[in-house]
């Protein structure tokens, strides 16, 4: 029974108990931990933003030789976001938004096509090498049928009659099995985390065992 003597461990243990107090009911201790967490994480994000992004990628290239004067443009775009403060100039914010969201949209199109569509389709073709054994053949056909039915389930241009209705029913079966499996795995991961916290409290803090 050697209770920890480190102030930090005690701090972590107290905060942990304050969060768990929410399980009893929403109480001031929980709200205190909630707001400390909100503040600290925002402060942490700002520090990271400052050290990993603002300084190396904005301040240094601009103010230290060789000066990258082209950075004036994004800064101007950024300043335009302050237009939101005045009713008259609130439309100014559309420019930085258009640049930021439009840029990311263009950037994502080839990446999305590559990893979300082409790689998945490429792996789903029924090729001869998938029919090595009886079991692998059955599995290959089942995967193919499941993929087909799932795609039809998410087909919006046709009413669900005759062929489409049946395929959608098959599709939802595969989808629900997939969700069940995902559910099971997520439960396992959450329980492991809870066990991790309890081990911290029992072992590191109270020193039992």
């Amino acid at each position, binding site marked *: 029974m050697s209770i920890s003597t480190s102030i930090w461990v005690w701090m972590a243990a107290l905060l942990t108990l304050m969060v768990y107090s*929410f399980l009893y009911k*929403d109480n001031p201790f929980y*709200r205190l931990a*909630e707001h400390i*967490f*909100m503040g600290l*994480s*925002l402060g942490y*994000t700002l520090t990271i933003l400052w050290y990993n992004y603002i300084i190396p990628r904005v301040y240094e290239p601009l103010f230290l030789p060789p000066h990258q004067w082209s950075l004036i443009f994004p800064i101007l775009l950024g300043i335009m976001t302050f237009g*939101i403060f005045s009713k008259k100039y609130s439309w100014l*914010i559309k420019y930085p*938004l258009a640049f*930021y*969201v439009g840029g*990311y*949209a263009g950037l994502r*199109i*080839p990446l999305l*096509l*590559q990893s979300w*569509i*082409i*790689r998945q*389709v*490429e792996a*789903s*073709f*029924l*090729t*001869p090498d998938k029919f090595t054994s009886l079991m692998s053949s059955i599995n290959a056909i089942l995967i*193919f049928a499941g*993929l*087909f039915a799932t*795609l*039809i389930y*998410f*087909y*919006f*241009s*046709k*009413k*669900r009659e005759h062929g489409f209705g049946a395929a959608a029913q098959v599709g939802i079966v595969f*989808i*629900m099995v997939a*969700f*069940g499996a*995902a*559910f099971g795995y*997520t439960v396992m991961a959450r329980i492991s985390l809870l066990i991790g916290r309890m081990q911290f409290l029992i072992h590191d803090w109270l020193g039992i065992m």
Partner: protein
Amino acid sequence: MLIGLLFFFGQMPITVVARTDSISLKPPTNLRAMDTPNDHGKSITLFWDCPLDISNIEGFQIFREAADESLHLAGYAPVNKTEYVDQLGLRNNVEYQYSMRSINLEGVVSIFSELSPVVTAYPQWFKKNEVNILIMIIIYFGLVIYFVRIARKGKKIFLRRIPGLDALEEAVGRATEMGKPILYVPGIWPMDEIGTIAAMNILKPVAKKVAQYESRIIVPCIDPIVMNVAQQTVKEGFTEAGRPDRYNQDDVFFLTSAQFAYAAGVNGIMVREKPATNLFLGVFFAESLLLAETGNATGAIQIAGTDRVPQLPFFVAACDYCIMGEELYAASAYLSEDPRLVSSIKAQDWGKMAILISLFFGSVFSILGLRFILSWFSAG
């Protein structure tokens, strides 16, 4: 026997104590080198034929030299390989020559193979191996533009009813009967994410309905851009419903930036403000269940919709209705009934039908031995 203590000048100091007594070790032959295609340069691909007797060989050492670089170790390939891509420390438009030798477990090395022909690495201006993706993008762009044009001409385009959305209107109605606020959680991802944009599209008609029923809508946000887009969208919803006066900017606010602090904050709102209807639409992660379960405990009607697949099981199991994956995008088109949006769902369905057809015929042909459809979908 010569103990090769090989020093070299330039990058890599290596102290290799090698006994070269066995003549039996043969170096690889027919060494060829070429610039690696479709890349930003600084990379050369080597090909060679393995020596006949490779029983004793553990791998091949690859040496490189250039006008200003002496012959030095640049790479290593295990014995079963006959190809190697050299990238480290290469420069464009510099003439390089390569030579190789075999090495066995004890570190005994063979003599050097003959030098490869001179080769230079240089960048290309177009990735030829990804032309299939470019063609697909062009076709898909064409589909989107085509359908938008015919929709603008007022052609009615059929769209299947999405059950979750009709429940949305009923749930908003229920909240107004009880005179309680509606909580609209637009997910925890910034504005550049497609799921968040769909959430914004759905927020507008919902805000409009809330204004008509003279009810209140609370929209806690996690990201700066999402917050001011939400403020603009809700304001427009209220003005379109003819009640700009009821719009309260404080109801659409920035809560915090961290995932779990946000979930904790939203839970606090659910417990304290007791909204009758919780709408979780947009991009969600692990906090999805934290929200759905607390909302369940407050007895509110809950409608969820996300394109994040791992969260769908919990929303399906814990909420009254769940708009799944792609249905979220279709929902924003269905609800806003904007021909431009409805038409783009059409383009997506055509894309799906094209994939279904390619999968079917691709499989049939590949069993017959023809693989041309498969090549369209090679990941390059």
